[in-house]
């Protein structure tokens, strides 16, 4: 038969359970806006009832503990999408800065190239006019400057990205260290408390992994020693309590290469995250554009120089080079300059007489004929414009796409792990009521006990 004392004990457990519920609700509300926080719920269990022989009486509730509500699969998807988004954003930010140089304006390469051909065509109407000759030299200078500006925009962007590579690697090393340090603590905590599901420590580690994913693409596996993290090509970053630092090393061209802890070059395997996006943009996107630009500058200048050489200047001498251009293709866009500064040195004449304009037709032909690259100068430039536009548009599309998908995934994660203030408010009332009810039971039992005590003392 149940006693008042056991009833009091059941009520005490009920108080504890309500207290635990309030505690969890309080914690959830406090962390409603904490990044990376996973909501907790209280774990209650019906106390195993005592068998009294005749009947089985309920023994109340047992407060087991708190449990974090996680969805590992969605977390993993978020990490991978975060990598993709950061990579696209890194590319986009850089390409957006390059784009204005290749947008049609009064000073872009395409416009300056047209202006140079126009000035030569105009000179044909009056080949001895020194004003018209000067206009050709000015247009040539403007084109050289446009090439120089475009080249310096690209190389300075590469330099910025290079700095970013080193900064990213430093951050990755800090994060992997912190993640590794948390591993043994989480393992120990999970051993001691099977209910809690990692709790605050696991939240912290997940948050760090999330930051790491934003920097580079990583593969994550859970082991008995905690989380193991490796880069896309399998280079270990975190194993149990140990982290492996990446290093950077400047190559012969000044570009920072990324090396693993054994000194192997893993630059090319880093494909997403801020680091991956930065490297890809630096080496492939901008590297490719620079090659195209240098080829155009070099071949255009050489075509002009050979036309100059085939004609005669106003002094009747064979034409000197129109442009100064480095012999190597690389560095041509940065190095292109006007060679002649005296308008009389423009080789417009085809027969050595000062008034002949026979060689101007050969200059005009440069515009129509294919350069050694197989394209006319205007087509070669338009390919570069297409390339810049296409790279930027792709990065933009990827960035928007991953942002949309991340919004979706975060909604999904929040539906499992997020704190709902409304829900917590309702829970608060529930636990408050439960607590009040349990307290009422105690006060009732107390009254009954008092009544029981006072039975011996007749009034």
């Amino acid at each position: 038969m149940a006693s008042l004392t056991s009833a009091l004990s059941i009520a005490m457990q009920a108080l504890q359970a309500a207290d635990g519920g309030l505690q969890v609700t309080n914690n959830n509300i406090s962390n409603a806006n904490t990044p990376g926080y996973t909501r907790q719920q209280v774990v209650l269990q019906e106390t195993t009832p005592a068998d009294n022989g005749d009947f089985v009486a309920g023994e109340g509730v047992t407060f087991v503990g708190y449990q974090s509500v996680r969805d590992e699969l969605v977390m993993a998807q978020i990490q991978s999408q975060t990598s993709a988004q950061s990579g696209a954003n890194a590319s986009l930010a850089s390409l957006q800065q390059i784009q204005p140089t290749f947008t049609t304006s009064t000073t872009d390469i395409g416009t300056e190239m047209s202006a140079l051909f126009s000035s030569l065509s105009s000179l044909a109407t009056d080949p001895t006019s020194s004003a018209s000759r000067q206009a050709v030299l000015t247009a040539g200078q403007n084109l050289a400057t446009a090439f120089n500006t475009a080249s310096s925009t690209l190389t300075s962007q590469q330099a910025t990205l290079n700095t970013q590579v080193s900064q990213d690697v430093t951050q990755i090393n800090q994060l992997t260290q912190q993640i590794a340090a948390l591993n043994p603590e989480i393992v120990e905590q999970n051993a001691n408390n099977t209910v809690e599901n990692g709790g605050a420590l696991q939240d912290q580690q997940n948050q760090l992994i999330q930051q790491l994913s934003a920097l580079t693409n990583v593969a994550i596996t859970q082991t008995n020693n905690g989380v193991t993290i490796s880069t896309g090509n399998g280079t270990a970053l975190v194993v149990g309590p140990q982290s492996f630092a990446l290093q950077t090393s400047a190559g012969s061209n000044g570009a920072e290469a990324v090396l693993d802890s054994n000194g192997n070059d893993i630059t090319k395997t880093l494909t997403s995250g801020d680091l991956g996006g930065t490297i890809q943009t630096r080496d492939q996107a901008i590297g490719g554009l620079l090659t195209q630009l240098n080829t155009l500058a070099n071949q255009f200048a050489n075509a002009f120089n050979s036309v100059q050489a085939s004609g005669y200047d106003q002094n009747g001498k064979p034409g000197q080079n129109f442009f100064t251009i480095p012999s190597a293709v690389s560095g041509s866009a940065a190095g292109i300059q006007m060679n002649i500064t005296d308008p009389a040195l423009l080789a417009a004449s085809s027969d050595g007489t000062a008034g002949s304009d026979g060689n101007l037709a050969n200059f005009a032909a440069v515009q129509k004929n294919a350069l050694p690259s197989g394209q006319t100068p205007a087509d070669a430039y338009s390919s570069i414009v297409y390339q810049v536009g296409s790279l930027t548009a792709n990065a933009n599309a990827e960035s928007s796409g991953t942002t949309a998908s991340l919004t979706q995934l975060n909604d999904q994660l929040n539906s499992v792990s997020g704190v709902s203030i409304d829900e917590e408010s309702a829970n608060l009332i529930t636990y408050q009521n439960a607590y009040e009810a349990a307290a009422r039971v105690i006060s009732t039992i107390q009254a009954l006990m008092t009544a029981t005590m006072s039975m011996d003392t007749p009034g």
Partner: protein
Amino acid sequence: MRVTNMVPDIEYSMQQSQQALATAEMQVATGLRVNRPSDDPAAAANDTVSLAASANVDQFTSNVDALLPQLQTADSAISQVTSALNTAITLGTQGANGSITAAQRSSIATEVAGALTTVIAQANASYSGVYLFGGSASSTPPFVAASSTYNSVNGSAAHPLSASTALTAGSVTTISDAQTGDTFTFTAKAGDTIGALQTALATAVSAGTLTAGTTATINSSGHLSIATNSSTAGIVVSSNDAVLGSMSAASGTAVANTYAYVGNSTVNTAQVGDTLTVATNVAGNNLFTTGSNVIGALTGLISALQNNETSVQIGAATTAVSTALSSIGQQRVPLDNSISEMNSQESYLGQETVTLTTQQDNLVGANMAVAATNLAQAQTQNQAVLAVAAKVMPQTLLNYLSQPSA
């Protein structure tokens, strides 16, 4: 699905809607659908090619505008030459009349000389400082009064030049012959002497470039003297050789009514279309000397009249002027063709500009009706998103719980 926090979704929607609004506003404000290459990479790339074509068309139009007046000036000069020749033919016909006196013929000869002066003035016509009939030697008058003797500035009796005097390598000496209409050019090579020049000159005489009797000798004052013994035709000599110190006509040796062509036969061209080039000048020797022989015919007529030759001879000289007139009529055809080509090219280029502008508009321009509709839609959508945010965000259970109990 459990919805815990609507703020991230609302933020995302606001972000999207504001981006759409910004894009729509940009298109309406600039009138362009493609403001950056990334807006439409293929269209932006094609636009650069189209703009290059437009720049060419604009330049071709400017070329036409610059050349038309120049060629029209040349054409009107030729018209005046034609009318001077007609006057000369009328005068020649009068002069051939057997009943007129020698004095009357002499006075007619003076009138014909006046016509020759008009022809020379027109042959030396220029436009904006460019001589129209000198070939590519367009900076000096192409027809120069000829003399029979030219002497070098350098050389003296005490220090005479000689056949062994070395010339400056690369220097050019030219002799333009009024009679043959040709020009002899001697470019000194390293080691060449005045002797080499003399030899080359003798070769040119045998080749017919220079009139027989043209010689280069060292005169008694020690100068190099280039002379012709023809009484009816003279020469014009020029040299940039420092050893000779240039050549100048000996005074009193001018040959009346003779002119030598010091231009060249180079014809310059300018582009006025992708595949259309027009000649920007006419070489004067074709029109006035070797080709039509306008000047020679007039000189012949003047001399026939002055010399009071027979009616038949004067008639023959007049016929030569008529032949020159019909020849110059043929020679001007290409010039007239160029002018009419340029006139039609100008209107073609005008159409081409419209075509290219339309192409560019199609490539990168915004369809304003669509852009304005997009803007209106984007505005409405943005307002809707903001209204939803305003409605949803303050909505929590606590609002209801905290209401004062009655």
